[in-house]
């Protein structure tokens, strides 16, 4: 591993996911205080706050770093507020990491929280016919599940995936989430339950698709030097990938109408989703074989299968075999989404990539009661935000 690029995770915390109907600020602050307690530190010890923004909660959401700082009490600390759709949390983490590695601060707090509307995500308000995110609803009626369904159907056409394979992902994640006190849904689900739920965007059914949730997650980070005074073997952030695509992007991506053209410029060596994890492995100096568990962005059950391949946990076309064989369940070869994943949480956009790191931290410390991956020493998260935001974090101990 590249030891000079590592930082420590001193504390992690969440506000449970759900539909609480309160302000995102409350979720963020409760998560932050939980992370501070976990770290054994107080607000006074924090020098830098990186907030992951929410764009559906007015001005306070655009300046999350300042909003959380003011709610904790103005004390002159420096802040940043960033946005990268579903990758916002990883961006905030990356911004805080660089401040620490640069020696500009010793201890930083990263917070993301959201209050979400019900139902499908819709484009932000107003009549905006220049915005692809508006036009895709108008001209195509293409919702987020539409795109997830195109990928799912592609797996069926190419690799013979079935609706039951997808359902197996839900069954596994629901089982993992049973033991997670921060999960929104804590209920066992059977293949029959999934198959009996109404089809949203064929072949995906209601139980194949993640809900939208309220929630908050926070991390207290420090330099390795600071951490080692408190803990001889702290959990470390070994890599953060925030790469963008390489032209031409030949897989259709939400919310676009088309891919780039490969007629003049040849496609890159690695497609975008493969490149996200690759950059993280490269930065950490390890490979897929060194990974004990993964938290991947299961916006749909089928998408989780794609991520297995994108992360190199198996070869292309083999993901169905992994889920069928139980390789990615807790107790299997490389457990995926031991937290229960988005399937058990629902998505709280700016909090989600941070929550993935919380789970890996608990796992590497051996604190994931009821869902513990035994002896885990390295885990990876992966995720992708609209408009070209890669997000992958490697956590090790």
């Amino acid at each position, binding site marked *: 591993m590249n030891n000079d690029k590592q930082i420590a995770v001193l504390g992690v915390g969440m506000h449970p996911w759900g539909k609480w109907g309160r302000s995102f600020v409350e979720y963020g602050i409760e998560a932050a205080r939980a992370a501070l307690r976990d770290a054994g530190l107080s607000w006074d010890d924090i020098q830098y706050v990186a907030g992951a923004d929410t764009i559906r909660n007015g001005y306070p959401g655009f300046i999350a770093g300042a909003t959380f700082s003011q709610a904790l009490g103005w004390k002159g600390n420096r802040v940043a507020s960033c946005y990268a759709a579903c990758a916002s949390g990883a961006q905030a983490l990356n911004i805080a990491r660089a401040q620490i590695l640069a020696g500009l601060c010793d201890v930083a707090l990263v917070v993301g929280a959201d209050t979400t509307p019900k139902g499908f995500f819709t484009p932000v308000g107003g009549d905006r016919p220049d915005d692809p995110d508006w036009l895709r609803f108008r001209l195509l009626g293409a919702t987020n599940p539409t795109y997830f369904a195109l990928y799912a159907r592609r797996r069926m056409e190419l690799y013979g995936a079935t609706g039951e394979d997808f359902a197996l992902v839900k069954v596994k994640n629901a089982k993992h989430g049973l033991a997670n006190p921060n999960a929104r849904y804590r209920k066992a689900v059977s293949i029959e339950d999934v198959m009996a739920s109404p089809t949203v965007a064929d072949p995906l059914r209601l139980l194949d698709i993640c809900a939208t949730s309220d929630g908050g997650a926070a991390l207290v980070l420090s330099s390795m030097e600071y951490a080692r005074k408190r803990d001889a073997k702290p959990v470390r952030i070994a890599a953060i990938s925030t790469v963008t695509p390489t032209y*031409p992007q030949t897989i259709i991506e939400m919310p676009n109408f088309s891919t780039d053209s490969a007629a003049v410029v040849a496609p890159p060596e690695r497609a975008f989703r493969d490149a996200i994890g690759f950059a993280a492995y490269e930065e950490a100096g390890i490979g897929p074989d060194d990974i004990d568990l993964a938290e991947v962005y299961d916006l749909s059950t089928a998408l989780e299968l794609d991520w297995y391949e994108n992360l190199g946990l198996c070869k292309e076309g083999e993901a169905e075999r992994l889920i069928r064989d139980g390789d990615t369940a807790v107790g299997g070869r490389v457990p995926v989404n031991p937290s229960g994943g988005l399937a058990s949480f629902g998505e709280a956009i700016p909090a989600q990539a941070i929550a993935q790191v919380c789970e890996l931290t608990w796992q590497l410390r051996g604190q994931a009661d009821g869902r513990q991956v035994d002896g885990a020493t390295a885990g990876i998260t992966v995720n992708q935000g609209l408009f070209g935001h890669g997000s992958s974090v490697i956590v090790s101990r």
Partner: protein
Amino acid sequence: MPAKTRVPAVEGWFTTEGDEPALLGTRCRSCGTYAFPRESYFCKNPACDGREFDDVALSRRGRVWSFTNNCYQPPPPFVPTSDPFEPFAIAAVELADEQLVVLGQMVPGTSVDDLKAGMDVELVVDTLFEDDEHEYLVWKWRLVETGAPA
């Protein structure tokens, strides 16, 4: 009752006249790369500084890359055309010459059960929704009849 005026639901994305409607894209004058929707600012090829583009009609035929049925009514700005909502299919279609994939609704009457990856489709212009005075048009994909006996 006078006929409604037929207008595109979005300006400049496709031709509406003639037997052979087509999507309108651009081709970079510097590097030749295609773009859809039409590029008007900067060529997306990172190796190219081009800012001038020729309008081009894209291939009218392509092959299905993937597809889905939308079974729930999408939120606004989608405009529903029936109550209760009727599911419709959307396909991602590969255009061979341009080497890009374009989304479009399938024409009414085609469902996922009719589709397989690799099938040939062609572009038509059809009604997206209507109001009292206008019929708003959009491009859609239609399966190409293979001529095989029914």
